[in-house]
């Protein structure tokens, strides 16, 4: 049984209750047992005491989109290394994408993942199961059995189902078991051989472009099918202003839809790609600055619900390639919070809004008890110095793969302590002694 913990002198930021005020937290038996304004009401015997020194104390982050290499590509990332990266980034729970070898499309594999995670990982790993067998977009998987095995959601991960009829069936059947469906929208025939945002930069670089309609056309289809079937639908990751408009309009009629965005699409734009920097080759692609501004507005207005890292470890073999031939994806668990805080420091998005998109909203969408600082909730807590300056260095990343889109980036804000169920799983001073100076 974990020790009691007291965190005092905290700036408690809890998006679930819109709280941003001084206070203290008492943790007992892995759960939040006490919340006070001001000083704690005594410190129990044997409790570990953390003086937050006025720093932000918030719920641990819930990342809706993380890929690892386990099983099948452990050299890229294991559950253990992903969890270590997550803990360092303040992520206390993440949804694990089923794009592994084998694909997570069977209850036994969900069970395997949960047991592996329990044995090796320091944060909560929430497996998502495939919507279709082998992610082939042809036959649906056993949603009911997958849910019983512990899958928190259904998704085809990187893949986008092209058949409207199959989606309709999958949405209906998922609604039957009340499982959320997380779908990456990409119209394959419009993506074609595209590798970056369509427009001047792609044309000048001689690269095939991906038009925004490759996102909006399937999104419009999904939103209509979601209304038809009543499924809990989450657009996995949108990247365009036009998609924000579609989501906002649909939300006025349908309360069971939500949308996520990768931190990369909030923090970066297509100009970062030039010339042929494959670490910025992402799916969806980095869009224009106009689209980036539009998705920031979408986040503030509530059209976009969640921010995720889109953590996608890829080794240099598949990344150091000609642009069109390189794999998509970047790691992001360790930079998610710091990159998001850029929007706070720039004055674009309030801190509570940013944290809500990484704590209470994902928890609501997934039906989790975590993601809030409430008595009885799991003590998944982070202490954050929102002003701490640091520079991203790929060699210091804990992930087994180093394909970061933020190499050399100057960040402001770092996690000082991470607790999962009251247990300290990361401490900044312990791991970065000397390196931080």
């Amino acid at each position, binding site marked *: 049984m974990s020790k009691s913990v007291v965190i005092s002198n905290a700036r408690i930021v809890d998006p679930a209750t819109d709280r941003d005020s001084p206070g203290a937290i008492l943790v007992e038996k892995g759960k939040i047992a006490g919340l006070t304004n001001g000083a704690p009401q005594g410190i129990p015997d044997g409790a570990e005491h953390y003086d937050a020194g006025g720093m932000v104390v918030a719920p641990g982050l819930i990342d809706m989109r993380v890929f690892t290499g386990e099983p099948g590509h452990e050299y890229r990332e294991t559950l253990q290394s992903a969890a270590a990266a997550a803990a360092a980034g303040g992520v206390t729970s993440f949804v694990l994408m089923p794009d592994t070898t084998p694909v997570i499309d069977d209850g036994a594999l969900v069970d395997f993942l949960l047991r592996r995670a329990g044995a090796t990982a320091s944060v909560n790993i929430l497996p998502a199961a495939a919507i279709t067998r082998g992610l082939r977009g042809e036959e649906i998987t056993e949603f009911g059995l997958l849910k019983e095995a512990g899958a928190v959601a259904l998704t085809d991960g990187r893949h986008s189902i092209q058949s409207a009829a199959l989606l309709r069936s999958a949405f209906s059947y998922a609604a039957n078991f009340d499982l959320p469906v997380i779908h990456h929208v990409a119209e394959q025939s419009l993506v074609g051989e595209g590798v970056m945002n369509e*427009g001047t930069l792609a*044309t*000048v670089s*001689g*690269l095939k472009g991906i038009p925004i309609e490759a996102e909006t056309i399937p999104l419009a289809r999904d939103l209509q099918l979601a209304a038809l079937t009543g499924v809990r639908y989450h657009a996995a990751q949108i990247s365009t202003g036009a998609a924000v408009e579609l989501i906002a309009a649909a939300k006025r009629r349908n309360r069971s839809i939500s949308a996520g965005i990768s931190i990369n699409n909030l923090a970066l734009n297509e100009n970062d790609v030039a010339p*042929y920097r494959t670490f910025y080759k992402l799916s969806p692609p980095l869009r224009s600055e106009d689209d980036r501004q539009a998705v920031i507005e979408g986040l503030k207005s509530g059209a976009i619900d969640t921010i995720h890292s889109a953590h996608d470890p890829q080794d240099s073999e598949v990344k*150091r*390639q000609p*642009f069109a031939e*390189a794999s998509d994806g970047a790691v992001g668990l360790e930079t998610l919070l710091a990159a998001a805080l850029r929007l706070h420091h720039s004055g674009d998005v309030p801190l509570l809004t940013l944290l809500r998109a990484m704590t209470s909203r994902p928890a609501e969408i997934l039906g989790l008890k975590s993601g809030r600082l409430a008595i009885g909730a799991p003590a998944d807590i982070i202490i954050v110095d929102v002003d701490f300056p640091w520079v991203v260095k790929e060699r210091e990343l804990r992930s087994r793969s180093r394909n970061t889109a933020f190499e050399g980036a100057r960040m402001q804000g770092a996690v000082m302590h991470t607790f999962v169920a009251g247990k300290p799983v990361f401490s900044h001073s312990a791991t970065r002694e000397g390196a931080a100076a």
Partner: protein
Amino acid sequence: MATSSPASVTPAQAASRPPFRHRHLLGISQLNQYEIVDLLDRAEAMIPISRQERKILPTLAGKTQINLFFENSTRTQSSFEIAGKRLGAQVTNMSVKTSSVAKGETLIDTAATLNAMRPDVIIVRHGASGAVELLSQKVGCSVINAGDGAHEHPTQALLDALTIRQHKGYLAGLTVAICGDIANSRVARSNLLLLGAMQVRTRVVAPRTLIPRGIEALTPEVYTDMRKGLEGADVVMMLRLQHERASGRMIPSIREYYHFYGLDAEKLSYAKPDAIVMHPGPMNRGVEIDPAIADGPRSVINEQVEMGVAVRMAVLDALLADREAAA
């Protein structure tokens, strides 16, 4: 500004020329106007060498040149090979035939392997945009881009400019219409960059399906009507249509394409009476160009091939001999 007479660059002038400051030639985008003129002048000075009995100017004697072609191209590869040999270099051809999936894997490996053989210059053609630049980062010698994806083909643009200059005497102020598959053409991109830098008025002429979004960054004049696009042009530059790829998707048929965008005498009559006709080859006669035009008096297509050798000699000499002299 530009000179026309091949005799205009004396050896003394050539000796006083500032050294070429680039290590690689990856694209026209890296060159400024003065460097372009410099390369064209150097190329012009190379023309007589290929026309004399003993075609040798051994400035690259003892140097090793590797032609690394991931895509087949008889004419460009031969042109680079002959250019290198006329400068006295030892030339090795490597044709790397791979599946598109395996291509990238071999690229970095191949670069490392070739680098270990200590070549002085590697000439690279690759199907992926940016691949040549990537390879240049992995080797210790000069790299010349012989075409990367739909990105750049700098020596083609230089040889086209030299051909135009030989015929018109100058570049600035001319109007050049580039016609055909703009979307997939590295030749179009390099030419638009080069001609733009030289104050040439450029136009692109193509059906909308073959015009990429954002082309306005490279030229403001976009025409879908070929007759309007050719009106008053000094130069008509045709591009090869990859009709196997385009048919049924980008264009309905070769018949319709030829009807609206194939260069025939009637359409050419809209250009200036002394307009010249160019094509980077290999031509699809009867697809983008009427054979009578391709082989007619206004065609300078064979001269382009000749200028190609001169331009490649000049680029090799600028990259290798100059660097040696500067070292």
